[in-house]
């Protein structure tokens, strides 16, 4: 692990200053590594009456500008909690967040709320799944978009309105000047999600976290929104973390993929490798269990069993109880020992099975 040290020059180099308003320059922690976002050993635990829920257990990943990282997993795999930890939304709750998340030289885990407030909206934007509950029903859509601009820029209300109207137009809302004064309930589901995107992007954040941004939408609108997000990302060269359970969405828009199971990353790598050179039994199982528009019908191949309880994670590999190939590793190692995450050329996996064994499993299906 890189030694943490305070180095103002490193911070200045890694955080380009926009001319509109100065960004925070003091950093509690800065690193020498050049990664735009580097998450190391991130864990989140929630103490509850029934015990400690281990929602995220040691996540590691890096992200560069202009890249899209897809985080996939089923419900309860910890993907949303990961994003909430990055946004500092778990601060002030009972959640115990440990590890590091270095974003442009600042550790998002230890950054106090005041520092986080300066980053949120300006440097890191977030799009939530359900735009109806994320928008305030009493304020006009325009007001809510302009608010983000006013908070982070020294601007008059008039300038903020102009910026918001411009942004509404850019996300494809017709007659934005009129729509500015309408309320969320006047908007359709797709338009609300566009408004959410406008709100997240109005300060042109370098990092955008989208948590299931299209799950509540119909496929035709989903396609529009995904196109829009890719377009805007290319325009601003920002980094995008896309959290989804839909492998189809991942295949369409992501450069890199991280597959989560039981709060751990079980496989990560470039999108083509995840789909065509799959190396973890869980990812294999996910891909095999999906009906697609092109597969021949017959029986589907579900993954047997249920996801593990986060209250009592198994001693060994978290996936071992549902893994059909655990016997191949021998000695019951899958049930007794947590596998390490090993990575080769950017494609990593957390499994006791060696590559030859994985290859034979893949070919036997």
């Amino acid at each position, binding site marked *: 692990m890189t030694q943490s040290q305070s180095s103002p020059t490193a911070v200045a180099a890694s955080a380009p200053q926009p001319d509109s308003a100065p960004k925070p320059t003091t950093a509690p922690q800065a690193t020498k590594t050049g990664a735009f976002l580097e998450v190391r050993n991130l864990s989140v635990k929630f103490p509850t009456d029934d015990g400690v829920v281990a929602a995220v257990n040691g996540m590691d990943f890096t992200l560069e500008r202009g890249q899209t990282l897809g985080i996939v997993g089923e419900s309860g795999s910890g993907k949303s909690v990961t994003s909430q930890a990055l946004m500092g939304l778990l601060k002030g709750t009972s959640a115990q967040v440990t590890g590091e998340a270095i974003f442009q030289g600042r550790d998002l885990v230890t950054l106090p709320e005041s520092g986080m407030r300066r980053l949120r909206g300006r440097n890191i934007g977030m799009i939530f799944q359900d735009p109806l509950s994320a928008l305030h029903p009493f304020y006009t859509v325009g007001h809510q978009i302009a608010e983000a601009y006013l908070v982070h820029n020294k601007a008059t209300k008039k300038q903020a309105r102009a910026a918001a109207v411009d942004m509404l137009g850019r996300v494809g809302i017709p007659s934005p000047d009129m729509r500015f004064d309408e309320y969320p309930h006047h908007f359709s589901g797709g338009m609300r999600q566009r408004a959410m995107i406008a709100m997240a992007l109005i300060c042109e954040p370098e990092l955008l976290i989208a948590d299931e941004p299209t799950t509540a939408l119909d*496929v*035709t609108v989903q*396609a*529009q929104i995904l196109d829009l997000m890719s377009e805007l990302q290319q325009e601003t060269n920002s980094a995008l973390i896309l959290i989804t359970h839909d492998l189809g969405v991942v295949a*369409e828009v992501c450069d890199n993929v991280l597959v989560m199971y039981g709060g751990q990353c079980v496989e990560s790598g470039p999108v083509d490798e995840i*789909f065509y050179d799959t190396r973890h039994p869980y990812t294999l199982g996910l891909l095999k269990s999906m009906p*697609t*528009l092109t597969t021949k*019908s017959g029986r589907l191949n*579900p993954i047997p069993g249920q996801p593990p309880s986060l209250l009592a994670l198994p001693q060994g590999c978290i996936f071992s109880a549902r893994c059909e190939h655990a016997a191949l590793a021998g000695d019951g190692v899958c049930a007794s020992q947590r596998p390490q995450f090993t990575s080769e050329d950017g494609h990593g996996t957390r499994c006791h099975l060696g590559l030859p064994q994985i290859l034979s499993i893949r070919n036997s299906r």
Partner: protein
Amino acid sequence: MEQHAILQVENLQKHFPIKSGLLAPGGKRTVKAVDGVSFSLERGKTLGLVGESGCGKSTTGRMIARLMDPTAGRIMVDGVDISQLRGKDLYHFRRKVQMIFQDPFASLNPRQSIGTAIAAPMVAQKITPPGGLKNRVKELLEQVGLKAEHYNRFPHEFSGGQRQRVGIARAISLNPSVIVCDEPVSALDVSVQAQVVNLLQEIQQDTGVSYIFIAHDLSVVRHISDEVAVMYLGKMVEQGSRDELFAGPRHPYTRALLSAVPLPDPRQARAQEKIRLRGDLPSPANPPSGCVFRTRCPLFGTLGEEQRQLCIDVVPAPAVAGSPACHHTALAGPLAAGVQ
């Protein structure tokens, strides 16, 4: 063919009146949630009903199960029109058509044990199975992949997939001829979704039940259906056999819908022809004149003045098998869909 059809729907309509008042004057207006839908379903087969939210697919399903009364049209189940049944006749009809709902969390009473929930339809219909009610419920539990000892448990002790199995057990308890499945796997994770889809198919093979499978996930529909019907704004726009429809969709809406499905295959996703619809679904309270799809139709922009006027003035004939509800299908040619 007519003899085999277990279910035949003819010109089914459901219109909801819009309340007008001081603040919203406008006389008597209606939302045409379902407007002239016809199809038939053969014994032991599955009809997939697809479309965007608000297209009327759930309303259609609910009318077939008579959870809603149709405004007009006929619903023939086993040769008998059930659309106007009342009282005792309706009560007896309930055995023939059952329903599986989308949300396994909302469709089970949290204070009722699983056993009681599954027995409820049999109790309501005053059926005493040979061997007793309790034994029959345990049999059903095992049939859907749960255990007999789950009888006394409560819904909160089960996962989403298991709850959906309970919903399935309840639906098959009366040996219905048709089950209307309204988005039965949409709330489930992929790995669990496959388990439930397999279970539905096993039950169909064992009992010969027919399914109306309502879903917005086209890949699941393709997997499970024999016939597929596509709806848009209350109208049937295209229907046909599964293979025909997916291999060569002819209505511009079907094509756009298919091309919008994200494929879990990066190379194919990049190569796929993408037809993007502009805008959102028009309000069903104020649908466009003529062809309801014309405001979003990718074909409309390419048409000549006269052809456009046809779309604006004339409502296309509702789709029947092999003939989509479009004035200009011929123009679009044998469209090679993005799906091979």
